[in-house]
């Protein structure tokens, strides 16, 4: 089902938690609102679920207005499932009771069959008789997902679904959740502050900041073609170095002219901050570009080096760990860029 959010605004005591948020999620897609804590992403989610009333804008699902001027569908009639941050499993019901809770208007056999089906989908068929307090965090999380999916909602919302799990479980579960959602053909929207989580699950990601949507795009485009400086900073690692534009495909920097298409066109001669991702920098012993190693961090297959350019500007470089360079030593580098990300330099 297609979800459409237009100009969504929600204020608490004059403070706009969500400020003119607009995006659309196509049927069967998994979307994600990504942003630091307090950016309004959870408020937006609760408005879509119907637990909160927007002050402005419109939310519609498959063309039906759920919330908007003069319209408000209560949450229980939206057919939108939700996986809560703390799961909110019913402690007085066992796993099976929790999962079949939302299945009404079905005969018993159909009900049980559907509950079994979703429990198998999340791989918890054997634990149907357990109570929530007898499950691990990851298992509770999957019960919450199964419970939300069981009534075949038009949309599934996930509020920081992995925040209370440890990193190990988190990574594995993220893949499982995506697989389960895709097998069900569900349309889903999650909110998170963790970009790895967003990349692992979502088809489309919206980066939010202070109640506003900075960019609504695929993960690849967020990384390689960030629309704003905030997105460039928030998604992935990298550093900005100063330069100025010389024509359509060229930026002059202290590392020499850098070639590539600018993702946002800038006038020739403009002063620009050029984004260098760690993978844009390649070690080249013979290169005349010499840098000094300030810091390094071993990541298994690669080292992440922090390098100082002759001017003192710093850049990050992700280098295969075949060789171990000393901190304080010199390293020759060259740039390998396909496209250029630059933002007009603020005075």
């Amino acid at each position, binding site marked *: 089902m297609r979800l459409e959010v237009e100009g969504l605004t929600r204020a608490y005591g004059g403070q706009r938690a969500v400020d003119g948020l607009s995006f659309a999620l196509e049927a069967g897609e998994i979307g994600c609102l990504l942003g630091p804590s307090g950016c309004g992403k959870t408020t937006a989610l609760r408005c879509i*679920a119907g637990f909160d009333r927007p002050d402005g804008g419109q939310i519609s699902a498959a063309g039906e207005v759920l919330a908007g001027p003069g319209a408000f569908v209560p949450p229980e009639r939206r057919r939108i499932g*939700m996986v*809560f941050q*703390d799961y909110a499993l*019913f*402690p007085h019901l066992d796993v099976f009771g929790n999962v079949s*809770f*939302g299945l009404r208007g079905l005969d018993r056999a159909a009900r049980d069959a559907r509950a079994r089906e979703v429990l198998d989908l999340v791989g918890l068929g054997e634990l149907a008789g357990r109570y929530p307090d007898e499950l691990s965090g990851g298992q509770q999380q999957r019960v919450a997902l199964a419970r*939300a999916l069981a009534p075949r909602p038009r949309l599934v919302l996930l509020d920081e679904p992995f925040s*209370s799990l440890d990193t190990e479980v988190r990574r594995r579960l993220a893949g499982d959740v995506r697989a389960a959602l895709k097998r069900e053909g569900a349309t889903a929207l999650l909110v998170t502050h963790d970009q790895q989580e967003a990349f692992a699950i979502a088809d489309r990601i919206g980066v939010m900041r202070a109640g506003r949507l900075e960019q609504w795009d695929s993960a690849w485009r967020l990384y390689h073609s960030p629309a704003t400086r905030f997105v460039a900073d928030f998604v992935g690692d990298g550093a900005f170095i100063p330069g100025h534009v010389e024509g359509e495909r060229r930026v002059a920097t202290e590392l020499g002219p850098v070639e590539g298409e600018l993702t946002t066109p800038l006038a020739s001669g403009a002063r620009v901050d050029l984004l260098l991702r760690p993978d844009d920098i390649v070690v080249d012993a013979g290169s005349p570009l010499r840098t000094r190693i300030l810091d390094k961090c071993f990541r298994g297959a690669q080292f992440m080096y922090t390098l100082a350019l002759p001017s003192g500007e710093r850049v990050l470089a992700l280098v295969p760990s075949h060789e171990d360079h000393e901190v304080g030593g010199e390293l020759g580098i060259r740039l390998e860029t396909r496209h250029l990300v630059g933002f007009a330099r603020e005075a």
Partner: protein
Amino acid sequence: MTLAGRLLPGTAAILVALPMLAVLAAVLHGATGADPELWEHLRSFVLPGVTRSTLVLVAGVVALSLILGVSLGWLTAACDFPGRGFFAWALLLPLAMPAYVLAFVAVATLDYAGPVPSLLREWFGAGFTLPPIRSTGGVIAVLALAFYPYVYLLARGAFLTHGTRALEAGQSLGLGPWAGFFRVALPLARPWVAAGAALVAMETLADFGAVSVFNYDTFTTAIYKSWFGLFSLETALQLALVLLALVAVALAVEQLARGRARYALAGAGARPPARLRLRRRLALAATVYATLVFALAFALPALCLAVWALEVAPLDLDARYVAYVTRTLLLAGMAAVACAALAVVLGWAVRAGGGWPARIAARAATLGYAVPGTVLAVGVVGALAAADLAWVALGATEGLWLQGTVLALLLGYVARFLAVAHGPVEGGLARLKPSLAEAARSFGLGRLAVLLRVQLPLLRAGIGTALLLVFVDVMKEMPITLMTRPFGWDTLAVRVFEMTAEGEWRRAALPSLVITLAGLVPVVLLTRRIEDASRG
């Protein structure tokens, strides 16, 4: 550890538990040694009626308290209506007014010749009558208005901690707010609601003053009458044993319910709960309902008391009155100090390696709050009588002269209210982690300095709360005082009993007002703590 080091805490704990143990022993022993003829009379003429009326009363009061407590708890926790913030704490205020005060105010104002029915007849004609207040329904209504706050407090707490969150989960699965209440919120709150209902049952079983006002016979009044009317301590002890069995059932229900009250939703979330918006008519109905309960259970009776107290003050405020007040304060003060001190000893004994004797003693010592005052009173007298007999058997020519002394009365108070002091003192002791004392000693402080500079200051708040709670409870206490006080030791509560027994309602107002005002102090503290908790 030395032998003395191990024996001392255990012995101390048992000594602290002695009043309660003696009462239980006396009730068990006395009940078996009764005159068979009297027991026969009791069994065929008293017991069936008293059992029936007590059970009817408990069932009615519990049912009505459940309705009032759960509905008001739900409205103030999960819904929005005008005055919600006020009612959230105001609906606890009836806890400050003893049931016997509410009872006599109700009888005084609503009886056929009372001011309210008279006024109604004046307005609507002589044929207009209210349902009679002196009836089973009347007692049930009055006791439910006095005791519903127990259910309200616990149910509201349960609804607040996970009602709204779980309700959202229910809504996301297509459940409307009303269905959500019955299918999610109520089942979740069930352990707390059951615990509240058990507390109401225990309070109803223990109530003596209110049923006396109504001349409604229950076990407590039967115990009182068989002693002061039939002069048979044995009969009283037998009735006490049956009553104790009923209390044990209520206590077991409460323990069972609390045992299951382990549901907790991880991380309730910092977000303020989104309350249900009631439609205008429903919101208005909720406000009217809450106002009605608050007015009937507290505001109007308090107003009556104030007006009557002002009327009779010039007549009543004489030297005798000063004596009532000083005796009340003296007894309450002594009992408070004794209970707090013993609670500290008990806590120390359990921690200092008293082992299982100390733990069992602590359990027994804190059982007293569940035991009705009438049972404790006859138990204390029975225990002292047995002690006298033993003393004489040892060769003494006279008894110990403990019966009818202030000491006997204090024994009863300690047995009943040690549990009240135990809670806050335990809370304070729990904060005294061993590492604290060790840290202090690592700075070179001696044992005494550690006690004075670290441990006592940490305990001070707990001890203060214990003193306050016991003090107020003793002020309100009626049956133990009435049945075991030395001659001339009349307290405010005794004065209320005597005036209401004679139907001198207005003259009972002044002492009642003083007791109620004192009772407000702990209730206000309680509401503050709740507000802090819900804000934090």
